[in-house]
């Protein structure tokens, strides 16, 4: 949160003004009476229901009078209150009886798909109240996937978290050799899994994983670890010229090179590159501005020897483009649309962007208002606005498996958000979509081949991987480990 942002400053003032009234004395009296009504903490639900329903009447009474009436009522009530209470287990403290969260309840049955459209057959997802199910053979118990990478249609790795007795979850890695159908535990760098946004002061650890081939891989965000023996051993590395406290905020590999976006907490983003077989990182001269909003984010996309970096901080702030082995400043699509943008590339020439214009101001081009798709066929030098429509309102991830084929992940609806994956094979003219379980949020979409891709979905506090082997026509959940 930046103190200089006028909108957020006004938002804070409004919230302070709306919450200006302190707790009334009647509420203090009611709360003070609680231990006296239930000295041992035993449930007497009729009492509390009586208190809640008649709370307004008691506000006019003195503390003593209220307590006297309550005691009389307690002697007459025999019913019990239905289960209540929270599950503050995420705070590392109490273990209250759990109940399903407001969102994230598992679907009771597989939702129906419209004819000829995406068919997703998710396995029943665990509710927040479910106890841990047995771990699959070879996978660490309680593994939650945070990032996934494939180097072929068979070989892939997933980075996730496991409990390890410390306050922060430990990083863990699982590997597949059958295209994600089964997974086994692999060696992970000895560090924490970083779940917060990578920002100054957000702590150490890693949040992403990428492999270039069966031998060379990296775990990153904010720290950087590399392996050159297929994950048997990991070494923490630094990027020369960036200084202490440098965070790696994005990393991708393609065409024998690995590229990372690094930031030392001040100044601009920088891009460093290295051949995949070594850790010979070199900084490029290009600098990408960070932006003035609260949560700057860099998206790094590679295809063959080409690459693009887009910085979004509420609006498109800046970018860089890789061509001929050199990163140079580049103006991403939707730079004047006053909203965010997402980008992917099917080939070094074919790119697609989804933009949501007009959120933070008036676009210079009125046609950029609202959600639109933009396509480029010249490697990002020029984009044209597609006449295709975006099938839902909140897009969180985009992928382009082949030129003209688009996969979107996000949520639709505002009062009740529903996670959705939508696929088009005709550049967005028609879409096949499927709703994910309630409360789901799509975190990532990636394709290894035109046919095989993976989606990371967060539902409540659990994450799930969905695989497609037919270009997004159908998806199946892959059980990485017991939850």
């Amino acid at each position, binding site marked *: *949160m930046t103190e200089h942002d*006028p*909108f957020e400053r*006004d*938002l804070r*003032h409004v*919230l302070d003004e*709306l919450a*200006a*009234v302190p*707790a*009334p004395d*009647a*509420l*203090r009296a*009611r*709360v*003070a009476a*609680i*231990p006296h009504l*239930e*000295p*041992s*903490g035993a449930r007497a639900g009729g009492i*509390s229901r009586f*208190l809640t329903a008649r*709370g307004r009447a008691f506000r006019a009474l003195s503390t003593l009078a209220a307590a006297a009436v309550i005691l009389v009522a307690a002697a007459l009530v025999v019913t019990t209150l239905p289960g*209540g*209470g*929270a599950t*503050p287990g*995420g705070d590392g*403290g*109490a*273990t209250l*009886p759990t*109940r399903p*969260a*407001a*969102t*994230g309840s598992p679907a009771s049955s597989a939702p129906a798909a419209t004819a000829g459209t995406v068919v997703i057959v998710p396995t029943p997802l665990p509710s927040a109240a479910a106890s841990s199910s047995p771990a699959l053979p070879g996978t660490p118990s309680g593994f939650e996937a945070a990032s996934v990478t494939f180097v072929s249609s068979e070989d892939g790795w997933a980075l996730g978290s496991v409990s390890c007795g410390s306050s922060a979850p430990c990083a863990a890695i699982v590997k597949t050799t059958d295209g994600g159908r089964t997974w086994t535990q692999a060696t992970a760098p000895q560090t924490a899994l970083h*779940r*917060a*946004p990578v920002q100054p002061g957000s702590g150490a650890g890693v949040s992403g994983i990428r492999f270039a081939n069966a031998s060379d891989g990296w775990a990153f965000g904010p720290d950087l670890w590399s392996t050159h023996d297929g994950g048997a051993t990991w070494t923490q590395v630094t990027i020369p010229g960036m200084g202490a406290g440098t965070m790696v905020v994005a990393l991708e590999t393609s065409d024998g090179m690995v590229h990372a976006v690094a930031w030392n907490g001040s100044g601009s983003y920088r891009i460093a590159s290295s051949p995949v077989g070594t850790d010979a990182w070199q900084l490029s001269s290009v600098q990408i501005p960070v*932006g*003035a909003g609260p949560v700057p984010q860099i998206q790094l996309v590679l295809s063959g020897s080409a690459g693009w970096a887009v910085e979004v901080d*509420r609006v498109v702030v800046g970018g860089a483009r890789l061509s001929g082995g050199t990163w140079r400043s580049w103006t991403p699509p939707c730079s004047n649309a006053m909203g965010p943008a997402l980008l992917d590339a099917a080939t070094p020439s074919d790119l697609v962007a989804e933009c949501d214009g007009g*959120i*933070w*101001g*008036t676009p210079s081009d009125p046609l950029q208002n609202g959600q639109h798709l933009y396509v480029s066929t010249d490697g990002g030098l020029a984009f044209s606005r597609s006449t295709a429509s975006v099938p839902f309102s909140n897009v969180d991830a985009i992928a382009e498996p082949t030129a003209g084929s688009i996969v979107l992940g996000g949520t639709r609806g*505002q009062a*009740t*958000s529903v996670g959705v994956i939508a696929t088009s094979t005709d550049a967005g003219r028609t879409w096949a979509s499927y709703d994910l379980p309630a*409360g789901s*949020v799509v*975190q990532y979409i990636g394709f290894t081949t035109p046919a095989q891709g993976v989606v990371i979905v*967060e539902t*409540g*506090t659990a994450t799930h991987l969905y695989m497609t082997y037919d270009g997004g026509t159908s998806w199946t959940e892959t059980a990485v480990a017991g939850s």
Partner: protein
Amino acid sequence: MEGRPAVEASDRHEAADDARARAFAGLMDRRTLDSAYRYATLILGDPDEAEDATHDAALSAWRHFAELRDQERFDAWFGRILANACRDRLRANRRVRALTEMPAAREHEDDLGNPPDRHVGPDPTDRIAGRDAIAAGLRRLSVEHREVLVLRFWADLTVIEIAARTGVGPGTVKSRLHYALRNLRASIDADEYGRYAR
């Protein structure tokens, strides 16, 4: 002597109950109740509903107080209980009073008798109109979006803390924050408040 063990056991239980009640009262102090009531007011938009939700949360906290292993984490623990109590009340009542229908934010002294802060800017009329628009926009948000905005911009929690408080993952929190701000921003006239743009 016969009967002494029962008497001693009773004394021990009473002493334990007293200790527990004192510890609970110490944690459920004025600051905690004020903060809880203010949060409930922001979420529910109605002072009576906020009072009942805060009481429900306090009652639930008392009943499960023995399960709080680390009293240093009381704020986060109770905050989660309170968030659930507010959502339960919304589900039960299926209504949310307009935040703008609440009594106008009163200028009041704080507990130490200090006068209220006065936000003086170069253009007070525009500022007031802008804040009214924000208040109206908050009313139109879903409870999930209002929740993350309140926890982020009023309670100053981090994404991880918000995730623990609301029972969802950090990615969901980030997504909700993004769309909550977007939806709130979209409800405000972009031309009139172009100063909010980059």
